[in-house]
């Protein structure tokens, strides 16, 4: 059976990994290639690089990062952050990314999803949805959590899937950074609404919370950031625990 995936997410700013400074044993904790290799050795199933560089000009350095990582690490690489056009996607794929995640650009111009899926195949197109609770529903938030859209996250998930998204990366803005566990209801509701894989994100705090997002949230993959970056657990710790809990993982 297909296994559940554990995906470390690395924030990259102007070509350097920020956060993740917990690796005191690494000579250079900001080097994307070194970190990617380390996570690969620990059994990470994929890697997500999120470009948090502010200016479009400096963002070009991300292409160099992808190129360097892709030459030495042979697991799937997803790149997101500031991707705006089909050309941006092409450049990243040619540099060695396997998937590109679209967030704000997809909300503002949903056409980009179908265009990208048509040109590169839907397996390359990850639509990232940042969702915030609003009563019993969730609202889509864009521009890195700064701007409300009034769009219903579940409806948007369905639309994105029907336009050609290959996977959805669903982040709970309420849980993100809290370590209080994923928003299971959000993940579960979206997983039941579409027939493509769901990567859950935001809130991983304990091993139990990761088990829950698979068993109760019905996620196909879990994105983990600070829990791994600060060395609380290694990817291998997480997978060993999940295996003990009878969740199918690659180990």
């Amino acid at each position, binding site marked *: *059976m*297909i*296994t*559940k*995936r554990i995906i470390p997410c690395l924030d990259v700013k102007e070509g350097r990994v920020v956060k993740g400074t917990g690796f005191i044993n690494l000579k250079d904790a900001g080097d994307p290639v070194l970190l990617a290799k380390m996570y*690969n050795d620990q059994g990470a*199933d994929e890697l997500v690089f999120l470009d948090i560089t502010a200016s479009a000009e400096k963002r070009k350095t991300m292409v160099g990062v992808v190129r360097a990582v*892709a*030459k*030495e690490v*042979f*697991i*799937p690489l997803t790149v997101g952050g500031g991707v705006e056009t089909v050309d941006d996607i*092409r450049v990243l*794929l*040619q*540099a*060695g990314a*396997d998937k590109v995640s679209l967030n704000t650009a997809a909300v503002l111009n949903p056409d980009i999803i179908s265009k990208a899926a048509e040109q*590169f*195949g*839907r*397996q390359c197109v990850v639509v990232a949805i940042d969702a915030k609770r609003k009563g019993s529903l969730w609202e889509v938030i864009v521009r890195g959590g700064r701007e409300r859209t009034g769009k219903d996250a579940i409806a948007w998930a369905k639309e994105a899937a029907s336009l050609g998204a*290959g*996977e959805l990366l669903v982040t709970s803005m309420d849980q993100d950074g809290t370590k209080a566990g994923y928003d299971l209801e959000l993940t579960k509701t979206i997983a039941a609404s579409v*027939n*493509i*894989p769901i990567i859950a994100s935001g809130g991983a705090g304990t091993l139990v919370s990761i088990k829950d997002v698979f068993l109760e949230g019905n996620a*196909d*993959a879990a994105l983990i950031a600070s829990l791994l970056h600060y060395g609380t657990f290694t990817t291998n710790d997480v997978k060993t625990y999940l295996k003990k809990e009878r969740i199918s993982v*690659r180990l």
Partner: protein
Amino acid sequence: MITILDYGAGNLSSVKNALDYLGMDNSTTDNPKKILSAERIILPGVGSFGFLMDQLRKKNLEKPLKKAIEKGTPFFGICLGLQALFEESEESPGVPGLSIFKGNVQQFRKGKVPQIGWNKIIPEKEGIIQEGFAYFVNSFVAVPKDPTIIAATSDYYGRYVCAVQWKNITATQFHPEKSGDYGLCTLKRWLQ
């Protein structure tokens, strides 16, 4: 020297990166003559079945590729490069495949489509494809008529064929170039 067949689907860099990393000499080409004289051929698979077959025909690569395979050139097909070896695919009805093997390519009937992620490889015969986990991205799978070509199976709401091996032909539904150490070792075994 390994010849990577470039039929115009774009991104071949991950296959090339993996071969470079393993120190295997390689070159990328869409030149029919070079296919015919190649020492080893890799057919990577990106795009759709119909697109791949159209491109092979448009670029006059189908005949040299079939000839090379028939004369015994070691061949490795990846993903769509496996599917293309069969007669036809539900993905592109009416488009004939390379028809080196009898059988067709069918869409997954159950589960999320595409299958994305790592799945367990269960070898069905001795050879290049060994037990382990490999990375898959696919909506379609080959259904061979001849069970003796099946090298390995995997499970996605039911068993399916994830690798075939017959004489000089090896092909995998998974992506060895994205399957970490398992994938690199698979490519290495093919070369030895």
